[in-house]
């Protein structure tokens, strides 16, 4: 599953509205509560565990992808 698909699943947004620049500023559903849900779903989808620093740094789809790549995740 591509990272964008995890976002559309969690936030219920249109896949066409999600790209690398999508962030908590552009997506109303991506609030602090949504961020925790996204974290839980990313970790269970890709079988990884993010550090607190990584979690805080995931402030856009591009940043999510960077964090996944740092864990050698392929999609």
């Amino acid at each position, binding site marked *: 599953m591509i990272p964008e698909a995890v976002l559309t699943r969690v936030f219920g947004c249109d896949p066409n509205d999600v790209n690398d620049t999508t962030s908590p500023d552009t997506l109303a559903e991506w609030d602090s509560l949504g961020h925790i849900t996204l974290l839980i779903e990313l970790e269970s989808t890709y079988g990884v565990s993010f550090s607190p620093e990584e*979690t805080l740094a995931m402030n856009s789809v591009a940043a999510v992808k960077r964090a996944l790549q740092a864990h050698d995740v392929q999609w």
Partner: protein
Amino acid sequence: MVQKTGETMQAPPIRPILDTHGSDFEVAKMLLRESLRTAAPQATIAALSIMAPTACLELLCDPVHAIAAAFSNADLSTLIQTAIRSFDGDPAKLRRIASVLAKRYSETLTGEAAQDVIGALGAELDPAEDAAFESIARRFPHHPGLLRAAIKIADTQGDDARLDELLTRLGAADGTPGTVAFIHRFRQRRQAPRPADVRIAVVSSFTVNQLVPYVDLACRKLNLSPDFYISPFNSWTRDFVDEGSGLRRFLPDIVFLAVSIDDLAPQLTRSLTLEELEAAGATALERVVNVAASFRTWSQAPLVVHSFHSAFVGPLGVLDDGADVSRAAWLARLNARLAESLRALPLCYLLDVGGTTSRAGGLRDNAKLRHLASMRLPPEALPGLADAYVRYIVPVKGLTKKCVVLDLDNTLWGGIIGEGSKDEILLGHTSPGSEFVEFQEFLRSLSARGILLALNSKNNPDDALEAIRTHEAMVLRETDFSAIRINWKPKPENMISIAEELNIGVESLVFVDDNPDEREQMRQLLPQVLTVDLPKDPALYRSVLEGLPELQTLAVTAEDRSRVEQYRTTRLREQAKLTVGGVGEYLRSLEIHVAIELASKQNAVRVAQLFARTNQFNVTTRRYDMADVGRFLEDSQRRLFVLSSRDRFGAHGLVALALVRIGSISWEIDSFIMSCRVIGYGIEGALLAHLSQQAHAAGVRDLIGEFIETKKNAPANDLYARHGFREVDARGEVHRWQLSLRTPIPFPAWIKVDAP
């Protein structure tokens, strides 16, 4: 593997051809035709679907080339999926293609491929596309992706009822945190299609926002529409204590209090002496019990308190479990004291969240989420906890069922009973057979909650009854069933007659049958009955019924505990009626005794229950709750009389009450209620006679009665007329009756009075 490589080798070399010609339609067509003659068309087309998705999709749409026939449904679906995902051309074109594909392959596509096709169509469908989607959706009622697509479409069409149902189904199909949060947010975003019917407050010392979507979903599954209040961060105490707090203004129907011992005693992360542990525990206990007591002063809603659980083990490692400072033993002691303190408060309950520090299991929080988001509950525990919440919510909403109606063959025992085949059924101490014994033990225990059992089975009655009476491993015997229907009639018909015999509504019945056809028929013909889906494995029967929210009760009175016995004696009475000539003689033969007294704290719960539940013999149907009853006991202007009765077959319990407003000139009967179990014995006459004699003795001139007509209280409509009252006023449903007390009402001759 080797063979597969060989097949691929035989396929035409696509890459060089495409490199030369581009992804041209004619080339693609040529390649496809060519590949169908080779041994591995799938390999060619799979490659083609990635490299030339448009051509590939158009070919699949083309009615002239019956290419689809060369593929299995699975391969065709994979092909379409790959092509749609590789497509990077004009979205309008993809939509046109998807429209054709949806209509042509609605009966063959896999769920995954259908999801991609529907995704390409978007949310606005024409009628033909709608029909195609309908037929796809019918084949995959539990496919999360398709359900999400259906939700989008229903949202666009503004079909609220359908949307509601789809969201609940999606939650059942996909219970991951992301999806459940999505469903909850979706519901909050839209205007509620109907007003909330249960107001749930969750007050907590930590973040519970992740739990609420699961509780919402669990309520929707029971067709409840909840409204939630979540206490603001760090204000759980103030919410209970402060006047005008958010919690108070919310007017909750039920409150859940989730306080973490780790929040109350941060020192638990360190090594502590036994004295330090005990002191921390005592402080925590006091804080929780204090807010519970404060809550009781301003709300009648039930309060459900989480048991304490901790994320931290003691300092001694494996030695900790047996040590005097063992955290597990300390928590167990603390929770036992919490339970005891809560028991002393009305309508306060302890919810065991299964939390111990035991390394062997229990509820451990997720350390990362604790630090990051103040979550004290691990995400994987949330669905189970939400189900536990609902088991308290159901009785609060009065949705508890009254009778479990059971099939026999393969439900209460294994196999099918036939003539003289009693010893061949599976029932005993070894498996297969022990599963059924365990299930029967649970069913028998339901009588402790006041829930009845009945039989509704298609068997030869003699064979079945012989097994029930004489099989040595049977737990449930004939007397455990309050109604028995063993015959060849349709089961829904039996169901109605069981409800009539027990004098309860069909909607109070649960139907348990291993046969899916019987269940389907019951759902079709009597949707009000709760039909339980039994799993195939009888070992799981017990846990399915144990988990059923509709079998939960919050207050168990002595009447509840003996209800099974009461219904059994009712059967004996009915039989006596048939053998004794004349109603008067029959009533005398029952040897009815009553005891009448003023209500007290000891029977307040039962009194509140009568106010809440009685619909038939209830003259004004005023619903007073526990708190009101408490006030009546203190009120010098009111008298609350209660009547208990018995006859030669057994005790009925506390079955009638009268609430009277006392004045110097007249007494007014505000409420007069009698349980429908004892209708027809003239017991109401005894209570009314007692009232008139008491009023007469007090020197009062008149006794005033009121009757407010409802859909259900016809059995009580002639109460006052039968006892010499005169109708003095009637406005709409409200009738006033008056009795002059020169001569009080005589006691019914067939009823004897016991000292209370």
